[in-house]
């Protein structure tokens, strides 16, 4: 067994997290850095791993006061309240995302693009994506919704992470709603399908249920929500600077 070098060693992760939780934000990095430095340079080399970890926990205990615990609780509550205020924009975005995706799905079902026509268009060399707005309009619309949601959430909360979180939740839940609606549409339209067709009635579109859309859109939500969040935060900073002359 090889011991890790002292400079790479870490105190228990839970204790570090708890310490950061108990500290006021302005001191989080500096105090935890001081303790990490002492842990690595002095305590670990002189006392060994187990006693060093106990030392760290003892230091953590010295930060547990009525004030620090109540401050940490208030911080948690504030975050909860903040998200509570943002749930409406998150819900609105997720409904919009689901609506856009469902509109695209229904337009494909009701008026499918003739693959022969597209093939001929490509062969004639006059094929353009712009001639098929249903292919790109939903993508642009979903992108705009996620960036807009992230921007609004970050602007209201003054935190970029809230923009990321709102857009990620909106995109994931919106795509889940969409997938559920696709399944529902298939079930409801089952009697309309030809029972003698090559696909069992009611399952005609099941093979195309885009389950993979959920993780893909969630990742897109993180990315676009962060971009929106950066804009939202920037707007807040600029407006604050203007209002202070």
């Amino acid at each position, binding site marked *: 067994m090889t011991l890790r070098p002292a*400079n790479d060693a870490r105190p228990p992760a839970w204790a570090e997290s708890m310490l950061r939780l108990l500290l*006021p934000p302005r*001191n989080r*990095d*500096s*105090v*935890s*850095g*001081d*303790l*990490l*430095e*002492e842990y*690595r*340079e002095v305590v670990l080399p002189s006392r060994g791993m187990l006693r060093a970890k106990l030392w760290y926990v*003892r*230091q953590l*205990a*010295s*930060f*547990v*006061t009525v004030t620090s615990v109540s401050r940490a609780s208030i911080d948690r509550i504030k975050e909860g309240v903040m998200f509570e205020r943002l749930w409406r924009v998150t819900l609105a975005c997720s409904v919009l995302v689901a609506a856009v995706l469902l509109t695209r799905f229904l337009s494909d079902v009701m008026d499918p693009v003739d693959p022969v026509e597209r093939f001929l268009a490509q062969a004639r060399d006059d094929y353009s994506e712009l001639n098929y707005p249903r292919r790109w309009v939903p993508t642009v619309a979903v992108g705009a919704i996620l960036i807009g949601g992230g921007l609004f959430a970050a602007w209201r909360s003054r935190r970029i992470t809230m923009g990321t979180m709102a857009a990620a939740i909106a995109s994931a839940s919106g795509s889940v709603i969409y997938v559920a609606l696709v399944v529902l549409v298939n079930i409801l339209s089952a009697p309309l399908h030809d029972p003698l067709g090559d696909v069992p009635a009611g399952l005609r579109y099941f093979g195309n249920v885009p389950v993979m859309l959920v993780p893909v859109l969630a990742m897109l939500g993180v990315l676009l929500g962060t971009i929106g969040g950066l804009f939202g935060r920037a707007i807040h900073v600029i407006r604050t600077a203007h209002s202070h002359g």
Partner: protein
Amino acid sequence: MADVLGAFEQAVLLSLVRPVTALGKEAYGRGILTEVQHRLGREVAAGAVYATLDRLEQKGLISSELEAGTAVRAGRPRRCYAIAPAGVRALNDAKVASERLYAGMRWPLRSPR
């Protein structure tokens, strides 16, 4: 005269006025902790020192600023402290108050019979 400083507050302020340990001279949290322990001759809880530093800063007796972190601290910044003129005055006041308290006493004190 402002509130008289407690003994622990005086120890923290004195460690900023004239540190004797090498680490204490660097005047950041860890150095001050070492210095206070050296001054008081006992182990001191880190939480107590940081809480005192916060309180003294709120009272305007010390000031602080962040400095860049090093690799051993995983890049986390150091908060370096300096005593403010009000802190020096508070220490002088505390010394005067202590001397006034002991004025007229014969040293060392003896238990009353």
